[in-house]
């Protein structure tokens, strides 16, 4: 009996270690590769014989800082705009009855059934019409109009007791003050989840910026890294941009992993609460 329990514990420990290794090894290999001189890229030893920061120097001297800036700017603007419009609308839908409410909310819900990629073409033609191609706005606006975030936030606002608002109204508070001073502080976890969702979505977006951003100085990191990677076939290993690619991938990956480590519970809770677009 004891031996049996012990052996099942050992098996479990082995499986956990195996899982951890399978998940962690590719990350480890990425970091190690970014620290190797490019001539040693094919070397398989787990601890490289030579370490260098040359790849990072090369990456920072090239277009990567600009791409990083575009990515951060687009992600922050998308988050700010998306959370603002969605939380106002969520409050409107959750706390008032008004003519057209059911229909308007129904339209928002129905749009959730339409896959994201299918809207990229019409969004492209709209942006072309307005001359907004190749600008941040062409990526920010489509990503900020996030129906899922509105839906998620409406749930949070709907749970607040009506008495809170009645009391504030009797004290003479206006509607916008009800929103800002009564409701918003109480739905902070929801706003956090919404912000995280919008930010990650923008940070990792590929198809939309690929279509909208045409000149390389406007690229985001995913587009830029894919562009560098597409140059690989035309170069020999020693002169290839692998160094910049590995360093750039680390640079674009580390901030979010650090956020995950720092805010563990909030980060995981926020993403699993609302995230559907993986």
């Amino acid at each position, binding site marked *: 009996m004891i031996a049996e329990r012990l052996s099942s514990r050992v098996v479990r420990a082995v499986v956990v270690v195996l*899982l951890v290794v399978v*998940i962690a090894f590719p*990350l480890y290999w990425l970091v190690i590769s970014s620290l190797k001189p490019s001539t040693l890229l094919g070397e398989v030893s787990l601890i490289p014989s030579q370490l260098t920061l040359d790849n990072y120097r090369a990456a920072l001297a090239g277009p990567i800082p600009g791409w990083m800036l575009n990515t951060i700017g687009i992600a922050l603007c998308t988050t700010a705009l998306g959370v603002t419009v969605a939380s*106002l609308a969520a409050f*409107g839908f959750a706390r*008032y009855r008004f003519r057209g409410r059911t229909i308007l909310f129904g339209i928002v819900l129905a749009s959730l059934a339409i*896959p994201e990629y299918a809207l990229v073409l019409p969004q492209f*033609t709209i942006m072309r019409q307005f001359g907004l191609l190749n600008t941040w706005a062409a990526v920010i606006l489509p990503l900020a109009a996030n129906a899922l975030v509105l839906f998620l936030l409406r749930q949070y606002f709907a749970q607040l007791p009506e008495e809170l608002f009645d009391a504030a109204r009797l004290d003479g508070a206006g509607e916008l003050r009800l929103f800002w001073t009564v409701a918003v502080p109480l739905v902070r976890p929801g706003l956090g989840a919404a912000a995280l969702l919008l930010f990650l979505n923008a940070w990792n977006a590929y198809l939309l910026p690929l*279509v909208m951003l045409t000149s390389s100085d406007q690229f985001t990191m*995913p587009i830029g890294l894919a562009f560098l990677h597409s140059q690989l076939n035309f170069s020999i290993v020693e002169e290839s941009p692998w160094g910049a690619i590995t360093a750039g991938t680390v640079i674009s990956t580390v901030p979010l992993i650090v956020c995950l480590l720092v805010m563990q519970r909030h980060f995981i809770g926020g993403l699993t609460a609302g995230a559907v677009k993986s």
Partner: protein
Amino acid sequence: MTALQSRLDVEPGATGAGPNRPAPAAPGRRRRALRRHPRSAPYLFIAPFFVVFLPFGAGSVLLALGMAFVTWPLGQAPVFVGGDNFATVLTDPLFGKAMGNTVYMLAGFLLALMPLALFVAVLLKQLRKRSANIVQVLVFAPITMSLIAVALVFDLILNERVGFVSGVLAQFGLDPIPFLSDAGLAPWSIILLRIWRVLGYYAVILFAGLQSIPDEYYEAAALDGANAWQRFRHITFPLLKPVTLFVLVAASIAAWELFAEVDVLTDGGPARSTLTAVMYIFQASFGQFDLGKGAAASAVLAVAIIVSTLLANRLLRSDDRDR
């Protein structure tokens, strides 16, 4: 109500606690208080969202439909062509190939992902709380990476020229395995990296579902002499079903839209074995500048996604009724 329904199931507040508004208990005062807001207030609250949503959400859906029925050469006005674009797309063997590849990779992805994610979730549940937390954070990390970053990481491992695996094989004097340049292997390499990215994410969602099942059920079943498999079959499986359905639907929608990884790693090759439906749409629209053809293919794919989501719901839900 399909993907949506299952989205609702795991969202906070969807657990039954949140009716739209509390029942009006003390009518007199409440009604007066409610009336005090100006009529325009709700419209002003929702207006900013709709300013962005109408063109890029709802409007784009309509425009997408319209575009499928026109031919729209660059710099010219669109011309109505009826169902021509659909005829072109549906008779194009390349589109059939792209849809077939997409379904093949989707099926392989789901068949591998679902048991693995469930397995990891059960494993997390069996760990002590502190180690479960540590493992949870680690397996969650890949989902924060972009698809492109993940694709590049796996290129470092699977690439024939400089990849880790070829390097290891070479040390034993073996030839490299053509993970990305063999038509049979390439789709599975794509599936592999996709699973690596999302396994922890879905496992954590299933783990949250597992934790909402009361321990008493298992204790009672154990008292009645149910073995581990019977407990899984009769308690875990039925009670976890809504969350499982959510994971299944979310994962399959994402897999239908497969594009970024193949765009970077294989460009649809070798021998078009990894050409996906979204890649076909992208090439038709921005390679051949045939927006109408791209829009028609988009519509066909969207219908396929919606129908398969409805079917998944119907099959798994009706299964409930039989019991």
